[in-house]
């Protein structure tokens, strides 16, 4: 959630308005400005300010002792420096306040600026503005490679703030003249800003959101709050890290596919071996995080939808590990083609519900899991399995999976001394792909490629190629791209892969495509099965049929690239579960 700072408060009336709307920060200006106040005024305002709101002192080349005095007397918690304060000055200020005073360094944006990271070692936050509170917006495109949490300032108001939040995703927005009328803070404008910020939650461009029944809204809001709390809780982080390491087997290997590389005769191909995780896929990364979170939230029962069964198996596993009840909803058609996983879940102590509604696949399993959750949420957490659904799910699941690209980046740098040229992953809802893309998003030269289930072909009725043929819609709590008929009825989709057999895609992917940051291709059943066999024979790795879609694209792409270029493919899961259905696809009868 983006934080809000309202700057330039100067009267008791201002504080009254602030206390009503509760932004996260307020700013007291001690520099030359129409909004300047003195020490005593600030002290009296701080006394009546809501205790949960942090105050920021705004300074230009101020005598250091004055700042320290304001801090020592509890009038400010943060100093925002707009002048020529250099690294030494900031270091000294930090030392003299035992590192307890937080520092925001403000930088004025000029066209030629390209280093935003000069102060990173000594500051806590960075603030970008068009001038010293000039009230004008600047060219947001100039913002890049920011490492510190960012306060975005300069000409923000209720009309452009949504765009600013969605486009820049700053840590906080800083508003002053945008909430004033005739030089005074305006109650209605502040109220509007706070509302707009709330409405921007969980948006990826125009996609995402929280299109959920009212019955579940408090539960979703609580989930977001608890997640925001625990993700910064050192004990939670430690516990999760330990599970990922000791139980799931992280870090997963980054494997150089030498034979395949030679055979294709182009770019070097590496595989991120998520198939080697416990339970055999990337799903465990997300499930461990959510199951642990659910337990902290006091829930005793986990429910989940599953397509191929990988997410169901992972959820059943986490439930067994943490001593929780587990029920999994699976489309009837999928229980047939992934019968082994059904038995696996039952073996792990889960109850599997066969979903006979609608298309009898993943889409309807999601519907029934939401229905179950709406009926019983007081003791139950719904572990959504992909980077989809209502906010905060796309964010939580993505965050859980970013470990994939974090490791990829470290490992490829270690092995090759440089970053890859392309990262490829399969996309159903898109969690392994979001996890694979995330830490490369800012490296704009790296191609990010998602592969979806093309079934018999995107030009036939039998496919799950959402990005190729879908259009904007709202389903399962999110605005995104969906395969649908003219009147908005959701299409039945088809893919040989139960995990990609979904008529939608996660909202962040919809946005990545829209802004041109990632490309999406549909891979047909035939191509995927060929890749499944190819990788088995070439490298001795049987990939999940889902992951084989990404492999198929690598097979096409590698020969078109130079030998010193690198492709990393996320091998999201292992293929044991698919062996029977691929045999059937090839006309082999295993029961003979």
């Amino acid at each position, binding site marked *: 959630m983006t934080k809000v700072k309202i700057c330039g408060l100067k009267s008791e009336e201002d504080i009254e308005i602030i206390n009503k709307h509760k932004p996260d920060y307020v700013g007291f200006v001690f520099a030359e400005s129409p909004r300047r106040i003195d020490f005593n005024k600030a002290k009296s305002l701080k006394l009546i300010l809501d205790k949960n709101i942090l105050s920021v002192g705004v300074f230009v080349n101020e005598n250091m002792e004055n700042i320290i005095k304001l801090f020592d007397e509890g009038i400010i918690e943060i100093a925002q420096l707009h002048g020529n304060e250099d690294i030494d000055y900031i270091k000294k200020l930090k030392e003299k306040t035992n590192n307890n005073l937080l520092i925001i360094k403000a930088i004025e944006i000029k066209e030629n600026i390209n280093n935003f990271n000069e102060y990173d070692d000594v500051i806590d936050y960075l603030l970008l503005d068009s001038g010293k509170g000039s009230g004008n917006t600047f060219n947001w495109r100039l913002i890049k490679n920011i490492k510190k949490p960012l306060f975005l300032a300069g000409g923000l108001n209720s009309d452009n703030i949504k765009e600013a939040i969605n486009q820049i995703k700053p840590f906080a927005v800083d508003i002053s003249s945008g909430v004033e009328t005739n030089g005074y803070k305006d109650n209605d404008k502040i109220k509007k800003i706070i509302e707009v910020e709330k409405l921007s939650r969980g948006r990826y461009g125009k996609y995402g959101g929280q299109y959920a029944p009212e019955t579940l809204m408090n539960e979703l809001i609580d989930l977001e709050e608890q997640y925001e709390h625990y993700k910064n809780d050192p004990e939670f982080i430690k516990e999760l890290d330990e599970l990922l390491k000791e139980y799931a087997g992280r870090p997963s290997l980054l494997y150089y596919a030498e034979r395949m590389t030679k055979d294709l005769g182009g770019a070097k191909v590496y595989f991120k071996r998520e198939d080697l995780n416990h339970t055999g896929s990337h799903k465990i990364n997300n499930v461990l995080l959510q199951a642990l979170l659910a337990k902290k939230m006091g829930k005793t029962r986990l429910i989940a939808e599953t397509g191929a069964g990988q997410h169901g198996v992972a959820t059943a596993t986490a439930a067994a590990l943490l001593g929780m009840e587990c029920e999994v909803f699976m489309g009837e058609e999928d229980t047939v083609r992934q019968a082994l996983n059904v038995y696996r879940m039952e073996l792990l102590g889960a109850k599997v519900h066969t979903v006979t509604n609608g298309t009898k696949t993943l889409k309807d399993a999601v519907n029934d899991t939401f229905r179950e959750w709406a009926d019983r949420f007081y003791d139950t957490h719904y572990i959504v399995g992909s980077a989809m659904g209502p906010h905060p799910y796309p964010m939580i699941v993505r965050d859980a999976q970013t470990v994939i690209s974090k490791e990829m980046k470290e490992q490829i740098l270690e092995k090759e001394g440089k970053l890859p040229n392309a990262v490829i992953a399969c996309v159903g809802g898109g969690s392994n792909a979001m996890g694979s893309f995330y830490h490369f998003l800012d490296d704009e030269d790296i191609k990010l490629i998602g592969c979806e289930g093309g079934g018999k072909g995107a030009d036939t009725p039998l496919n799950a190629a959402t990005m190729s043929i879908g259009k904007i819609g709202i389903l399962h709590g999110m605005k995104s791209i969906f395969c649908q008929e003219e*009147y908005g*009825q959701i299409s039945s989709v088809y893919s040989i892969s139960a995990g990609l057999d979904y008529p939608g895609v996660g909202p962040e992917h919809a946005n990545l495509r829209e802004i041109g940051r990632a490309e999406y291709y549909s891979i047909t059943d035939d191509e995927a099965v060929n890749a499944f066999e190819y990788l088995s024979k070439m490298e001795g790795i049987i990939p999940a049929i889902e992951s084989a879609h990404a492999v198929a694209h690598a097979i096409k792409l590698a020969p078109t690239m130079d030998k010193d270029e690198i492709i990393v493919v996320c091998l999201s899961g292992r293929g044991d579960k698919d062996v029977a259905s691929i045999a059937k696809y090839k006309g082999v009868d295993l029961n003979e």
Partner: protein
Amino acid sequence: MSNIANAFKDGTAFIGFVTAGDPNKEKSIQYILDMAESGCDLIEIGIPFTDPLAEGPVIQQANLRALESNINTDDVFDILEEVRKKSDVPLVFLTYINPVLAYGYEKFFSKCNDLEIDGIIAPDLPFEEKDEIDEIAKNHGIDVISLIAPSSKERIQMIASDATGFIYVVSSLGVTGIRNEIETDLEVIIDEIRNVTDIPTAVGFGISTPEQARDISKVSDGVIVGSAIVKIIGDYGENASEPLKKYVKEMKDACR
């Protein structure tokens, strides 16, 4: 006074729900008129959808029956056009938002206005996402009706103070469907609503018997029945007119 307010002016309103096009176009017109004639003060018209997330099995089946008859949104408007030739009963849509988005918000609400449809209830459009249609609907004089659930708690006042038309109070957790007992303390919820607004409240989810309707009438301005009506159509198919009329009359009498 908007047409919705008219539904509440004469004692407790009895509000019936029916999925448009169930079991087919002709019968659907007939059934809506039957309901109006035998005592429904307001009728909620469901637009069939493949993925009705908040519905239990009974209404899910109705959606399927209508979709199997190839009913689309234009057919739904056709049905209502026929209804309007014979009845001025207040009508609101109950629809998931995707069919409306696909139809085009402007075109959809302009048609609503033409056919004097007074409101829209979208179960997948909570307060936080109301912006999606609020302005366009208002411009065409259509009320966006808010839902309040047993789990809404501190959200009640926020939602109620912004509500228009009437407030749909969801009686129970979970999805629509017939329930033997309503366990939620509705009085507490409705009292809280009353602290901030005077617009009518109507309670739905799980109500099927005259006894339940009578009890709910004591605390609420309206009683909403969906699954029990839809079940009659499911059971009797094309011959549901008589049992439907009998049931609606019985329920309306219980509300008086």
